């Protein structure tokens, strides 16, 4: 049996490299009827803000070719209610929990980091500096390396939790941003968040989404995600979590080859709630069949022709 353990931050060893992407796994317990969520490497919660947010109005999702656009607008129950109502349930389920947070400004992030620091049952913090769907959803931090570094440094000061910074793909040079957040003290980088896209209703001659634009996710974006993971893996020495269009074990394995230490499953959770656990099993079977004794031997083993 292949050893699937991976270390995604100093001291943070996951039982396997499969996590669930923020915003696609609710607060975790919604998946409990479908499988034992403690079997995942980790679950990453819907992005939390200091205060609850009601999100965008109008149509929030629409399907595109091999992808979907969402403009949820970071609707969430807020950090307080998460800690009181949701986290205890996840602890009871023995799930490894990574909390995703976002804010309107540096203060918000620092405050959230401080609030979550030392809370039992939280394995790590993923800061979303890349949500395209709200004006103040952190996107300004995601495209400017200086701003990103400053934010990461501020959060770093407030937390002893392993810190994952989630990057936006909507940039000219992902490597520059990745290096900046590594430098600033991020323990790990996750990428990619959604590409910014738009869909139009020809009949009604208006944008389909209430928010006009939205985040593109799903298999359509996998090639972009894979490229960015590969580029960043060449440039940084902290672990990388690959995200973007992963729908099955083969996709996940491709991201590992490209240099990701772990992966997050997003949109595919909507199609089949068991996708993430099937990916755990698929990776295990594949590596076993290939004779690997540990997944870490497989990671970043891509060969150039």
């Amino acid at each position, binding site marked *: 049996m292949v050893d699937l353990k991976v270390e995604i931050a100093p001291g943070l060893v996951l039982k396997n490299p499969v996590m669930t992407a923020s915003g*696609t796994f609710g607060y975790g317990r919604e998946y409990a009827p479908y499988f034992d969520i403690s079997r995942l490497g980790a679950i990453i919660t819907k992005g939390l803000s200091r205060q609850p947010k009601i999100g965008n109005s109008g149509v929030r999702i*629409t399907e595109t070719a091999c992808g*979907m656009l969402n403009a949820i607008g970071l609707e969430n129950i807020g950090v307080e209610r998460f800690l009181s109502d949701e986290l205890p349930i996840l602890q009871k389920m023995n799930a490894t929990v990574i909390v995703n947070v976002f804010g309107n400004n540096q203060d918000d992030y620092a405050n959230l980091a401080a609030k979550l620091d030392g809370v039992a049952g939280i394995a790590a913090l993923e800061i979303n500096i890349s949500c395209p769907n709200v004006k103040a959803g952190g996107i300004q931090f995601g495209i400017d390396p200086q701003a990103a570094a400053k934010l990461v440094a501020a959060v770093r000061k407030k937390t002893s939790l392993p810190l994952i910074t989630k990057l936006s793909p909507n940039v000219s040079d992902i490597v520059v941003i990745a290096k900046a957040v590594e430098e600033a003290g991020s323990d790990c980088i996750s990428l990619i968040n959604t590409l910014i896209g738009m869909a139009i209703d020809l009949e009604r001659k208006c944008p389909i989404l209430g928010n006009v634009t939205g985040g593109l996710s*799903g298999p*359509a974006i996998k090639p972009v995600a894979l490229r960015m993971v590969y580029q960043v893996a060449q440039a940084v020495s902290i672990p990388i979590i690959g995200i973007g269009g992963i729908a099955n074990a083969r996709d996940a394995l491709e991201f590992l080859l490209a240099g990701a230490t772990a992966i997050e499953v997003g949109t595919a*959770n909507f199609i*089949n709630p068991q996708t993430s656990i099937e990916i755990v099993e698929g990776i295990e079977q594949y590596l076993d069949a290939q004779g690997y004794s540990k997944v870490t031997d497989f990671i970043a083993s891509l060969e150039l022709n």
Partner: protein
Amino acid sequence: MYLFNSEIVNKEKLTQNIFRLRIKAANDFCRVATPGKFVMLGSDDSLFDPLLRRPFGICRWGTDWFEVIIKIVGKGSSQLSKLEKGASVAVHGPLGNGYPINKPENEQNTLILVAGGMGIASIASYLFAAFDRKQPLIGTFLLYGAANYSELILLNELTDADAFGLQLQTITDDGSCGRQGLVTQLLSHELQNNPQSQVFACGPEPMLKSVQKVLQKNECDGFLSLENRMACGFGVCLGCVQSMINEDDETSVKTAKVCTQGPVFPAQQVIF
């Protein structure tokens, strides 16, 4: 809810672009189905266009099967329409909360079912469940509107139901069957005759909006079954939310997930 790959055991064309699929299901699935619940259906997991599964009401069910009625409107429904008897289909359900099926408090109260267009699939689930339980439908009205005669489906099956006491009225936009007009006109009329009625309605949003107005005007309660766009169907994407009146705090609005908290909601709560 259950998650399984199943088989199409029957396929029937109802109109040019509406068809009915009978799909195999285990006992457990059928035991938890109730009128107004739905399934997410997908056809082939190895191709990603269409990507997401699509929601369809569970229209009828037996011990080891259930039926959906699907109108072809886009790529998901048209892909499902290509599946023939024997083909496999991916099923997730039963999902959501259906119509309240406890008897109306007052036995004398009438129940008015209002269906617009494909809303009939959801409304019919209530009727078929009653037929299958041999529950009499005395005092039950079905007000059914569609664009034209050829869009009115299930008429034969629902007319058979006369024996059970169901009173069916149809109305079409072009007058090709029943009166000419909108189904809410029928509703206004019936509510005047039967002010104490319970109302269940399903149909396109503009129709539900106007049903809501009629109910308000008549100070009558009712339930609306919504059909918002869904990505997941089980409460995790937040794509399907609908604004609702916040009962705890009437000055503010809250959102409800149509997939898990609905699709059936008390009419007075929904904010269109």
